[in-house]
C-alpha cells in the first residue's frame, strides 16, 4: 500500500491557500467598492455581514477613490487567477 501523502498534502495546501486567498481578495474588492456608512457601524459591528432587510444605515457616502482603486486591483488579480484556472483546464 503506497499512499501518496505528499500529493495529498500538496492538494490540501494549494486548495486552502488558493481558496482563502481568492475569497479574501474578492471580498476586499467588494468592500472597497461598497459605500461607507459613517455612523451606526458599531451597533452591528460584532455580527457578520448584516443581512438585515430593515436597512439600519446611517449616512451613506461614496467609497473613497483609493478604496475604489484598491477594489479594482483586487478584481483584476482575481481575473488573473480565473484566467490561470482556464489555462489549467485547457492545458
Amino acid at each position, binding site marked *: *500500500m*503506497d*499512499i*501518496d501523502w505528499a*500529493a*495529498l498534502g*500538496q*492538494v*490540501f495546501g*494549494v*486548495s*486552502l491557500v*488558493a*481558496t*482563502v486567498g*481568492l*475569497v*479574501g481578495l*474578492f*471580498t*476586499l*474588492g*467588494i*468592500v472597497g*467598492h*461598497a*459605500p461607507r*456608512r459613517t455612523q451606526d*457601524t458599531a*451597533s*452591528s*459591528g*460584532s*455580527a*457578520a*455581514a*448584516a*443581512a*438585515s*432587510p*430593515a*436597512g439600519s*444605515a446611517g449616512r451613506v457616502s461614496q467609497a473613497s477613490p483609493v478604496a475604489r482603486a484598491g477594489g479594482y486591483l483586487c478584481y483584476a488579480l*482575481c481575473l488573473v487567477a*480565473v484566467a490561470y*484556472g*482556464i489555462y*489549467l*483546464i*485547457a*492545458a
Partner: protein
Amino acid sequence: MEHITLLIGIVIITALVFDFTNGFHDTANAMATTISTGALTPRIAVAMSAGLNLVGAFLSIEVAKTISSGIIDEGSGVQPEVIFAGLVGAIIWNLLTWLAGLPSSSSHALMGGLMGATIAAVGTGAVNGDVVVMKVLIPALAAPLVAGIASLCATRLTYRLARHAQEEQTAKGYRAGQITSAALVSLAHGTNDAQKTMGVITLALVTGGALAPGSDPPVWVIASAGMAIALGTYLGGWRIIRTMGKGITDIQPPQGFAAQTSAAATILASSHIGFSLSTTHVCSGAVMGSGLGRKGGVVRWSTAGRMVVGWALTLPAAGLVAAGAALLAEQGDWGVTAVAVLTVAICGAIWLRSRREPVDHTNVNDVRPAGAPVPAQAAAGEAPEPAGVVTTALQAVAPAPAGTGEVSAAPALSGTAGPEERPGERPGEQGAHAAPGRPASASASSVS
C-alpha cells in the same frame, strides 16, 4: 464482423447515455449553490452550465488513456461486452441515486461498473486492489475534508472582512463571484468527464478495428460526447440540485461564493497535481464547510450522512449491477439484447417513479422540512405543508446572524458541535439513523 459492429454500436450508444446521466447528475456540483442563493435563475444556470460543459469537451484533446484509471488490467484486452456491462451498471446506479436526490460520484459509478463487469467476466485477478484504495477510497475521504476546510476558512474570512458592509452593497459582488466560480467548475467538468466517455468510445472503436490503436478520438466522437453531457446538464438533475443547494445547509450568497470558489480551486489543484478528487465529493464537502463557517449556520448531518452512505455504496452497487449484466451479456447476442432491453425497462421505471413527485426548475428551491426528497413517498405523507411554509418564511424573514447573532448562534452552534464529530468517524451509523433523524433536521432548520 457484422456481430462486432452491432455490439460496438450498442457500446457507443450506451456510453453516450452514461455521458448524459453524468451531465444530468453533476449539474448540481456547479450550479446548486448558484441556484439556491438566487444568483442565477434555475433555467439560466443550467443553460450556462450546459454551454460551458460543451465548450469544455472541446477544450482539451488529451484523452484519458486508461478509461478505468488503472483499476483494471486493460492490457489483457477488454471485451466490448465488459465495457457495455460496466456502463449499464454505472447508468442504473446514477439514475437510482438521482431518484433519491443523492449527489454521488459518476466517476466512481463508472469505475465500480467496470470493476464489477471485469470481475464477473475475467476474475478478481484483473482488478488492482492497491489502485482501488489509492484512486477511490483515499480521495473519497480526502475530497470533502480538503474542500470543506478550505470552504470553512474562506466563509469565516469573507464574513469577517465584509462585516461592516451592507448586504445590498455586497450582493452584486458575491453574485458575480459565485457565477464565475460556478463557470470554472462547469468548464472543468466538461473537460474531465466528457473525456471519459470519449475514451470509452475510442476504446470500443479500437477494439472493433474501426480505429488504429492509440489514435485520437474522431471529431464526431468529441462532438457527440460534448453534446450528450451538455444535454444532460441542461435537463438538470433537479432533485440533486435541491439536496445540494437546500438540503445540506441554508446557503447565503457569501457562503455560496466561498463554497463554489473552494470547489473550483480544489478541483483544479487536484487534477493539476495529479491526485484526482471526485467533483461531487469536493462540492458536497465545500457546501458543508460553508455551512459550518457561518455563525448560526446549521449543517443537516442526517442529509450529509445519507450522502456519505450513498458514496460508500456507489462502487459496490454499480459493480454488482454490472457483474450481473456482464454474466448475461456473455451468453451471446441474446444476452446482450436482454441486457439492453432490461436496462431500458429499468430506466423507464425509474423515470416513471420520479414523475410521481416531480422536481424541476419551478420548485427546486422549495424546501420540505426534511430538506430531502430521499424516501420520496414518505416525505410526501409525513411532512405537513405548513411546516415547509413556516421554514421558508423563517428563512426569508430571519436576519441571518445580524443583531440576534449572540442569541441564535449559541444554540445553533451547540446543536452542530455534537454531531459534527460523528460522521467522519462512523459514517455508516449516521446513515442508519437517517430516517429517525428527520424530525431533528426539521427542528434544526427552524433554528436558523
